[in-house]
């Protein structure tokens, strides 16, 4: 059984909570005591119907204000796949939350109200999904029941969105007409839309091909730590612990270690005594090498003919996540990239991007909360990175405010800055 992570975006009005509630309920992932608790609370609040949003909104403040504050993670499974939903709220901090949810997602699900069509927030969500390189995008045209299940409405929205999405880089785009309230085309096929020949939402989630979304070409193995038992029994044992972020490693493969540039061969791949014939993303393994080299945390193991970019000057898109500060040229921050930590200075802010219009504001002097812009930055030590479009793991970084230790920025690398 495979694991699929997807992010949902939309506001309460789009019926997102109803849709998630429907997916969970129809796959028997909501259990009786959870439903009973929601019923009790709904009744106490005087809601007219059982408010499935209460199932999702867990914090006191969320229940009091009737809004979702933070990304919430939900889990369900079918016979085919296990699903992790990163449910991102549409109201507060939408960009910060959606960037967070999308960063680990295989698929983004965006809801559109059939009566309203493509709105500003639809475009915004689609843009963020494409910026974060979520490989699969699903547009659910919801509330089809309120437009008499009319094919013309669906076709119109699809065409309008298609036109817009040409500006984005969306590899795989799917449109599904649904009614979350009635369950049409969510888990089971609707008999009210015979004109729709595509899959139901759940069928699509179960079958969308995600295995080749990973980078299996460029070997990237950032060293997390060195495992040296210091015991008589394992006197000679020395291995590098880490998670494979790209490519396929096999024993006897020739590898290069950065920053030293030395080459050697993989002697052994294993985890907890179990030998492996190959290791690929996202496996966590121990790699031992034929020769003893000076290797420590933050170093990178790759193939000699296929190294990552190496450098201290990066060109990147940054989403600013902090309420209390802004990103400005000259700012010094801590940076975490793969297993490497360093300091970074923002050299230049090229433009701020309007996430609604995609307009580039080159006059902008800073990035505030939820704003996205293109920057160049210089790091105190060289990083071993790839363009984000090639590898989401070696192409991403976070920025940390050294005074408060807060995570204040999320970065996606365009390439080396010259």
């Amino acid at each position: 059984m495979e694991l699929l992570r997807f992010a949902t975006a939309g506001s309460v009005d789009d019926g997102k909570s109803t849709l998630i509630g429907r997916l969970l309920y129809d796959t028997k992932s909501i259990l009786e005591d959870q439903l009973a608790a929601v019923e009790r609370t709904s009744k106490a609040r005087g809601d007219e119907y059982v408010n499935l949003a209460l199932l999702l909104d867990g914090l006191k403040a969320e229940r009091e204000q009737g809004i979702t504050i933070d990304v919430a993670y939900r889990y369900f499974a079918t016979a085919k796949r296990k699903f992790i939903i990163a449910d991102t709220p549409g109201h507060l901090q939408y960009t910060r939350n959606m960037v967070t949810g999308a960063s680990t997602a295989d698929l983004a699900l965006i809801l559109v109200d059939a009566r309203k069509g493509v709105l500003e927030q639809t475009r915004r969500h689609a843009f963020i999904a494409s910026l974060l390189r979520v490989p699969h995008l699903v547009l659910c045209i919801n509330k089809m029941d309120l437009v008499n299940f009319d094919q013309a409405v669906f076709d119109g929205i699809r065409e309008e969105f298609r036109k817009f999405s040409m500006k984005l880089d969306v590899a795989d785009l799917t449109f599904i007409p649904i009614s979350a309230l009635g369950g049409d085309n969510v888990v089971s096929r609707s008999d009210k839309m015979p004109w729709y020949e595509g899959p139901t939402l759940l069928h699509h989630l179960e079958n969308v091909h995600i295995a080749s979304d990973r980078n299996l070409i460029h070997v990237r193995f950032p060293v997390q730590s060195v495992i040296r038992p210091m015991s008589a029994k394992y006197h000679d044992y020395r291995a590098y612990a880490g998670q494979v972020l790209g490519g396929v490693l096999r024993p006897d493969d020739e590898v290069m270690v950065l920053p030293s540039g030395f080459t050697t061969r993989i002697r052994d791949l294993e985890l907890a005594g179990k030998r492996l014939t190959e290791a690929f993303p996202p496996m966590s393994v121990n790699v031992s090498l034929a020769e003893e080299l000076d290797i420590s945390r933050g170093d990178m193991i790759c193939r000699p003919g296929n190294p990552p970019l190496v450098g201290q000057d990066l060109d990147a898109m940054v989403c600013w996540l902090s309420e209390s500060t802004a990103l400005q040229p000259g700012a010094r921050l801590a940076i975490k990239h793969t297993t490497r930590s360093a300091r970074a200075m923002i050299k230049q802010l090229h433009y701020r991007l309007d996430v609604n219009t995609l307009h580039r504001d080159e006059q902008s002097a800073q990035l505030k909360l939820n704003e996205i812009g293109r920057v160049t930055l210089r790091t105190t030590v060289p990083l071993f990175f790839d363009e984000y479009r090639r590898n989401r793991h070696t192409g991403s970084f976070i920025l940390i405010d050294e005074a408060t230790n807060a995570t204040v920025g999320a970065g996606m690398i365009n390439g080396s800055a010259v």
Partner: protein
Amino acid sequence: MSHPLDVPGVTGEEGWRGCREAVLAYRSVSYELSHLEALEAESIFIIREVVAELDRPVLLFSGGKDSAVMLHLAVKAFAPAPLPFPLMHVDTGHNFPEVIQYRDARVAELGARLIVASVQEAIDAGRVAEEKGPRASRNRAQTVPLLEAIEKHQFNAVFGGARRDEEKARAKERVFSFRDEFGQWDPKNQRPELWSLYNARHRRGEHLRVFPLSNWTELDIWQYIDQERVALPSIYFSHRREVFRRDGMLMAWSPFLQMLPGEEVTTAEVRFRTVGDMTCTACVESTATTVEQVITEIRASRVTERGASRADDKFSETAMEDRKREGYF
């Protein structure tokens, strides 16, 4: 209009796609991991990240199934080197003897160091007021000795076995969850967590709670226990026990629980879905004696594990959030 990531001079996308397709065609069997393998890889990465970035970690080990799986993953993460941190049990004094036995056997087997933070000692010393009455529980009282032990040993990372699917406040919890100098959790002011880039920074006196099992569900845990043959305390499997009904739940009779008028002790075939303090952990009727049979029962269950077995979450809709804010697990 071009894509914002389309940067002049950074091209070669065509060649890259072609190369990728060729290799994928060559290897028609795709490199797929099962959901358990993917979860294991993520958890091991998290545990290793903590040890690489924080110098004083500790792993909370209650002897329950989640902490048993977390410990198993931690051992795998560093093997063949020994576990690079101690274990800690917050002991309410109201334990199932089978669980303490299991705890001690596991600690001895690994040659690990166990720190016991005692609720009884904290009560005796007057640092915690004991709840009174038939529904009294020491569950909430655990927070005080937990925070005291963290301070005393200067731990800056505390591994917990909590899962996001357990409870709605936990669904909003980070993997690396920051705690201030009072051990408090501020759910409205959490650090954004992106990709697998975890921020472990903190000042002296502050610490991080780390939850390597965040993305696991109850069923994942049991499937993994089955796959890896993880040993568990015997009370997770069907056994005969003296029990009584309270609030729709089946409570184990023990000297720590005062009976209410009308409550009657009977004997039943039961097992536990969760293991905690004897005063607030209930059992379910079951004939499952193997992991496989437990999995079959869980698949058919229409009630969550906390709903079936935790009296402590029934006080209010936000009981867990309230406890967590104070520094609870």
